[in-house]
């Protein structure tokens, strides 16, 4: 279980996070949503330890992450997988080498065993036949799939996704969402997704946390989004008149 406790982050005079406390549900897809500049990315980077908070703590089960030394942090990180916004695939490596990289670095498996595991991961994300292509030779959606395959190759306990749908068409975005949710349930991972994609919110949001100007303003499930009377949340999710009409119609129908 991951828990953030009173996280504060300041950059010079600017306070980006103002005491955010949040608990993420194990084995579910947890979404962090909010407008651009709400502090989502900073919060996610603090959760994974890429950035240190000005104040507050992050707990991985009963371990205070920021009290650990570098060696202990690396041990925790072996349980973490992350899909980056731009996929962060290594340009000089082929798809197979990208996915195999964590195994090459940290496992004692033979090359054949590692390749079997890579094959399995690539098949799991629906990507076969692209093993020997370079990242620049595949589409954005395929790059996301490779990123997911690399994130799950070490069988992590926690999966973090930073804007997994950014730059993708709605259909591919939906497929990526479904894939992340399936993987989360199949392997009982705790998944934390940073997004402002409303389709994701309504499709895969088991637990949704809404950040507004650096504060946790609302938390609930996708089923509770429609009925919530939090004006800030409604103003964010149903921003367009079309979506507002849709919400009214949905509420009328119960």
């Amino acid at each position, binding site marked *: 279980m991951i828990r953030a406790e009173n996280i504060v982050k300041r950059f010079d005079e600017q306070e980006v996070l103002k005491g955010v406390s949040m608990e993420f549900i194990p084995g579910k897809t947890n979404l962090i949503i909010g407008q651009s500049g709400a502090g989502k990315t900073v919060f996610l980077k603090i959760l994974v330890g890429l950035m240190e908070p000005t104040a507050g703590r992050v707990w991985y089960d009963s371990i205070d992450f920021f009290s650990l030394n570098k060696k202990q942090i690396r041990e925790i*990180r072996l349980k*973490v997988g*992350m899909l*980056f916004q731009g996929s*962060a695939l290594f*340009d000089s490596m082929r798809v197979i080498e990208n996915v195999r990289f*964590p195994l*090459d*670095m940290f496992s004692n498996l033979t090359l054949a065993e590692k390749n079997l595991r890579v094959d399995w991961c690539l098949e799991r994300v629906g990507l076969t036949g692209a093993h020997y292509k370079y990242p620049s030779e595949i589409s954005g959606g395929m790059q996301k799939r490779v990123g997911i395959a690399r994130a799950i190759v070490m069988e992590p306990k926690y999966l973090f996704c930073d804007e997994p749908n950014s730059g993708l068409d709605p259909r591919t975005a939906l497929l990526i969402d479904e894939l992340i949710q399936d993987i989360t349930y199949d392997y009982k991972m705790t998944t934390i997704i940073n997004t402002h994609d409303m389709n994701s919110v309504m499709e895969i949001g088991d637990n949704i946390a809404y950040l507004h100007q650096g504060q946790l303003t609302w938390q609930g499930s996708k089923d509770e989004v429609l009925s919530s009377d939090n004006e800030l949340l409604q103003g964010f999710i149903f921003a367009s008149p079309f979506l507002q009409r849709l919400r009214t119609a949905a509420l009328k129908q119960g």
Partner: protein
Amino acid sequence: MNFNLLYHIGRYVMLLRQAFSKPENFSMYWKETMRQMEDIGIGSLVIVALISVFMGAVAAVQFSYQLDGTLVPQYYIGYIVRDLAIIESAPTITCLVLAGKVGSNLAAELGTMRQKEHIDAMELMGVNTAAYLILPKLIAALVMIPLLVTISAYVAIIGGYLATVPTGSLSSDDYERGLRAFFQPHNVTMMYVKAIVFSIILTTVPIFQGYYVKGGNIELGKASTNAVVFSNILILLSDYLIAVLLTG
């Protein structure tokens, strides 16, 4: 200003300290070291050879012109070209050129990796990025650059020969006699000391610039430029210090 300088020196030292950690996986580090050796060594061979041949040739022609009509024996040209190549042009000029070629390349590579979140991705996998991204480059440079400097010295001497002997300025015997005259093995030691010190400078300074780059393409360009400028200044400064220390 002073505080800023101390801050950067402190970060540079700490980054290097992190780099000297036990590798997570020796074979991965070995593979990366080999790749870097090819990039730094083989990739720089042509430019080093080209520059060296002209350095030797120009030195020979200039000294031939200067010594013409003087009482200094003509075979001194071979001696001057040899010592100039060994003491100064092979280590210093070669490393200044490499600071431009290899240094800017390293800063750009690391900077791009930082911007495209490759370094973050590696960190999150549990990789000690300071070690994995620095150590293989440093080892590769420490092996390949002294080799390039050695090649440069030989090629410069050949350049001097080509510029004087076929043109009739000097006989082959005289040039060879000059090459054998007043040889001091200590100069070769000095060449390798310089090559090693300059190798460390021209890899670690650009790596530091690239590793901590923040912002977009303009900052990346600045980091790359700073990498070359600071490396060149430090190479020249240490060249002076080594000269003072080893010739005193």
